[in-house]
């Protein structure tokens, strides 16, 4: 059975007292909170204050100035390379480091054959692939002009077989560190014709021949070390012998298309240059390091009889002169 005990008068008094204390404390807390809020609202004042200055630096597009491809027509070197250059000033108002830590391409190309995205080859397309990867100071090809400008100069060995046209260009494109992009082309530049020739053997040894007999065929390879189709002009000298009668130049006979038949004459050499249709093309393949194209010529010597006795060893000179086909 549940019994409810009525509180005594003392207990009731204590309850009332406690209740009053609770109310007073509650009111005090409310008052304190209000006062605190009021002070907080003024908390920003003092004899000093600070403001944060803030700016966002825009990512500006770089600009490529005038692109120069050499300063005159390009003259190549037969069988070798010629160093050519392409340069331009690149500016970026964000600072030159924005360029130098970016990316870019420099392409020297024949605009009639390919475009500036060509695959590098010695015939029509020279590219700065290193430049493609960017990096510090663009791997040494750029020099500082100012805090916001550099001049990048791409030098490249141009091979003898580079195409002989008037439409070579240099294209320069830049992507700065924030992927802002710019590009420019040079005007057309000429690559001059280059006639370049070489032969396979410095000595054509016809062996030991009996008077009144033809030698065997001796081949002489002709190589095109230029950038044009070539024919070949030939002449020679009389072969001087150790003793006895010399051998006239007309006893040297040749073919430019195939071997000379047994015991037969080809075209006889003379002391004057005679042009032969060799039609030897330059190397036009898409390779970065070219090899020369070649054609073979075939030679025989007829040793005429003589009444002056044994001649010993006889020597002379044959001239191979390339001309544009």
């Amino acid at each position, binding site marked *: 059975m549940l019994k409810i005990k009525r509180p005594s008068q003392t207990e009731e008094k204590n309850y009332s007292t406690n209740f009053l204390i609770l109310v007073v404390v509650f009111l005090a807390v409310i008052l304190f909170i209000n006062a605190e809020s009021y002070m907080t609202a003024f908390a920003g*004042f003092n*004899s000093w*204050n600070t403001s944060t200055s803030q700016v966002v*630096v*825009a990512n500006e597009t770089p600009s490529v100035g005038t692109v120069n491809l050499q300063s005159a027509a390009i003259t190549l070197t037969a069988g070798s390379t010629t160093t050519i250059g392409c340069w331009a000033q690149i500016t970026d*108002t*964000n600072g030159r480091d924005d360029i130098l830590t970016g990316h870019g391409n420099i392409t020297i190309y024949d605009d009639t054959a390919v475009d500036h995205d060509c695959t590098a080859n010695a015939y029509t397309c020279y590219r700065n692939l290193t430049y493609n990867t960017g990096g510090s100071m663009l791997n040494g090809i750029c020099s500082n002009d100012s805090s916001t400008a550099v001049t990048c100069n791409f030098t490249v060995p141009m091979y003898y077989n580079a195409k002989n046209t008037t439409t070579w260009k240099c294209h320069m494109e830049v992507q*700065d*560190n924030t992927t802002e992009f710019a590009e420019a082309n040079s005007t057309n530049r000429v690559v001059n014709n280059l006639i370049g020739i070489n032969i396979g053997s410095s000595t054509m040894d016809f062996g030991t021949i009996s008077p009144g007999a033809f030698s065997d065929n001796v081949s002489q390879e002709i190589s095109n070390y230029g950038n044009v189709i070539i024919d070949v002009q030939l002449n020679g000298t009389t072969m001087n012998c150790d003793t006895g009668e010399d051998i006239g130049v007309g006893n040297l006979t040749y073919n430019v298309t195939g071997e000379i038949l047994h015991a037969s004459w080809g075209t006889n050499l003379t002391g004057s240059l005679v042009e032969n249709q060799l039609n030897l093309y330059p190397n036009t393949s898409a390779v970065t390091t070219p090899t020369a194209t070649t054609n073979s010529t075939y030679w025989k010597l007829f040793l005429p009889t003589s009444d002056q006795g044994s001649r010993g060893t006889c020597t002379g000179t044959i001239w191979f002169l390339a001309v544009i086909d």
Partner: protein
Amino acid sequence: MCDIVSNNQPNFLIFIAIFLLLVFFIRVEPHVTAFAGFNSWNTTNTTVTESSENPSISSIAIDQHPVDLVAGSTRTVSCSATVSDDNGIADIQGGKGNITIYDSAVTTSACSANKFNCYKNTTYSSGLDANVCPGSGSEVTCNFTVPMYYNANSSTAWKCYMYIEDQGANNDTDETTDKTINDLTGIDIGSATMNFGTLSPGSFSDNISQAIYNYGNIILDVQLNGTNMTCGAGENIGVGNLTYNITGEIPDASWGDYNLSGTLQNRDFNLYPNRSTTDDSIPTSPTNSTYWKLYLPMSQAGSRGTCTGTIWFVGNPSS
């Protein structure tokens, strides 16, 4: 003998009781007419008229000297005084009065309430009571507590004046000697961040205004300095590329009258405090604008991203 005493004892007690009753009535109501009629005893009427005495103010004092105000906020200031009246505290508490804390250098105790030079207790004008002037016997203590605002005049001549008038229209006045409110240099600015937007290297930003508020009680100049702006990448921006005017906007693509530096430079800003005497509302702080531009120099260091720095505004008493 014992019997006699014993028989008279009730009368004695009755006599004592009546005596005490009379004393009680006389004390409570002096003008009550005594019992009429005849008896073995009688009474005579006693009358008295109490004079209306003047109240007397003493020990008037302000609780602080000097008073140091709080920038942009209030300082609680109290003025208290003891008031006595021989007619008893009811004569005071049923009366009226006023207490005025004022700057005697620029106004009088009859001033109209305002936050610059005159703080008045309007409660007293409508009557005193035990809440505003508690006490006992013939003496009360009246206490006027007031939030004094930051723009209260910087002066050495502040006084507390008290006027008390009791129920009998008797009055007294008193006031303190001169008290001092110290100079208060208080400043605030309009924007915690001055955002110059997005800038291209080699160009100026648009004008950015920055308001300066006087939250004190003196004429202010402002001292300025700042830090270099530190960028997310690349080269930081030197503090000298922040340029400002204190009189108006900076023309297009131009430097301001002053370039910020790393050391404090004083500028004659002459920003007055709020000295309004025409209203008693919470004071607003006077303000002047400054105008800022940022020149973003070119750099070799590449893109900088977001750059931030700090500009200091230090209030300085105007010379």
